[in-house]
């Protein structure tokens, strides 16, 4: 079914009632909304109407619902807020429009002047960008996999240095995520390092990123084995091969 522009405008009502069933039509309308300000305003207003329709349907919910929901809330981790200037798409092509409006045109002019050598430089830069995006994306995927694992478990412990460390682990994924809150900031030449410790060996599990607002970004560690304990130590910048100080926290990870 071919939609004319006029037809797209009149879809706002069906759209706010969730009555647009065809995925193609839905996508086309959402695309249109991104470019049509008056449509977006209309959708916002009509959605408020549907809220009144919903409120008018209010009934007493079953008494069991409240304790069920609150219990579920207690064991459910929340999504972090979206940071606006994060790359919206991990793939290189998603970045092209942004690049074109920024430094790329200038760089392209330079390329034309400098010839083939500069083109190679550009290619190298872009490959680097692609790698960083791929890394960020695969890290995000891996973190999401741990959080979504059916056997995901959370362990939290206070540390002897203050603050606390939290680990989310999945035995099935053999991975874990480490975050901390309220750990004392370290001088430039020191870093917090995570370890996976068991009676046979102690393996480095990664360096905690620098904290922002008292919290560290999640650190993903792989190769979780049965009987592992997670430890955190303070190490010289760059990390160590084996712990050189006494752990500030030890978290047994077996059930």
């Amino acid at each position, binding site marked *: 079914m071919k939609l004319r522009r006029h037809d797209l405008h009149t879809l706002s009502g069906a759209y706010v009632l969730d009555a647009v069933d065809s995925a193609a039509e839905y996508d086309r309308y959402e695309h249109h909304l991104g470019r049509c300000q008056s449509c977006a305003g209309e959708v916002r207003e009509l959605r*408020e109407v*549907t809220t*009144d*329709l919903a409120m008018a349907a*209010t*009934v007493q919910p079953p008494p069991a619902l409240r304790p069920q929901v609150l219990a579920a809330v207690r064991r459910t981790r929340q999504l972090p807020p979206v940071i606006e200037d994060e790359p919206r798409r991990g793939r290189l092509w998603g970045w092209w429009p942004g690049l074109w409006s920024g430094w790329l045109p200038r760089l392209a002019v330079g390329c034309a002047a400098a010839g083939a050598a500069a083109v190679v430089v550009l290619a190298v830069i872009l490959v680097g960008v692609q790698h960083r995006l791929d890394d960020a994306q695969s890290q995000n995927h891996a973190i999401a996999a741990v959080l979504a694992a059916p056997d995901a478990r959370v362990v939290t412990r206070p540390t002897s240095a203050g603050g606390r460390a939290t680990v989310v682990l999945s035995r099935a994924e053999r991975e874990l995520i480490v975050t901390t809150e309220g750990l004392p900031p370290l001088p430039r030449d020191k870093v917090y390092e995570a370890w996976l410790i068991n009676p046979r060996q102690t393996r480095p599990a990664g360096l905690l990123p620098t904290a922002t607002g008292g919290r560290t970004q999640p650190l993903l560690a792989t190769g979780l084995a049965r009987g592992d304990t997670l430890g955190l130590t303070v190490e010289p910048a760059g990390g160590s091969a084996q712990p050189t100080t006494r752990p500030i926290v030890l978290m047994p990870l077996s059930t």
Partner: protein
Amino acid sequence: MEMLARCGKQNPGAGRPFGLRLRMVGMDPRDIHAAPGAQAAGQVAELDLNRLLALVARGDEAAFEAVYDRLAGAAYGLILKVLRDPAQSEEVAQEVLLEVWRTASRFDPAKGSAATWVMTIAHRRAVDRVRSVTATVARDQQAAPPPPALDEVADAVEANLTRERVRNCLGGLTELQRESITLAYYGGYSYPQVAKLLGAALSTIKTRIRDGLIRMRDCLGVSG
């Protein structure tokens, strides 16, 4: 705290004097800069929904309970209208409310009110459920349950007022507008299904739904 909320539910207004007393001793219940969780239940319950959701995004369970007490009845009622089966509706309502907790940090007040955000999630989940084949079979086998008594709801007065206003405004629409909107929203039908049910052209139903909602907007005095 749970006890207190329960009392409030059975006896509308019972929570009010508590909130009032707190205000009289000079504490500002609207101060959201206080540490999450540090507020008394009465204080949290007085915050507007947008602020409550901001607290929920930071993991404040008391704020979530207040959101629950204000919106669970509408979310459950809407889902029940669409699905008709109380057991399924309870299940979907639980999913929706948990989704509110989980994704509270994604709520953007610039895009609409907190109630709208929650009801949008609720309606989408209900419609998703109704459009899956198994659910349709289950729904067809269920008789419509009698609606629970509204006067047990905490905000019964407010809900009744909204219901009255909505009924009035729906009454001001043409029959085709009204039927299209109620079949799509409360019935969970897609607009091509509505067109088929009403024996009208697709484009007609599409425009009637839009015209009807615009007329509702003007009647209800909704401002964007």
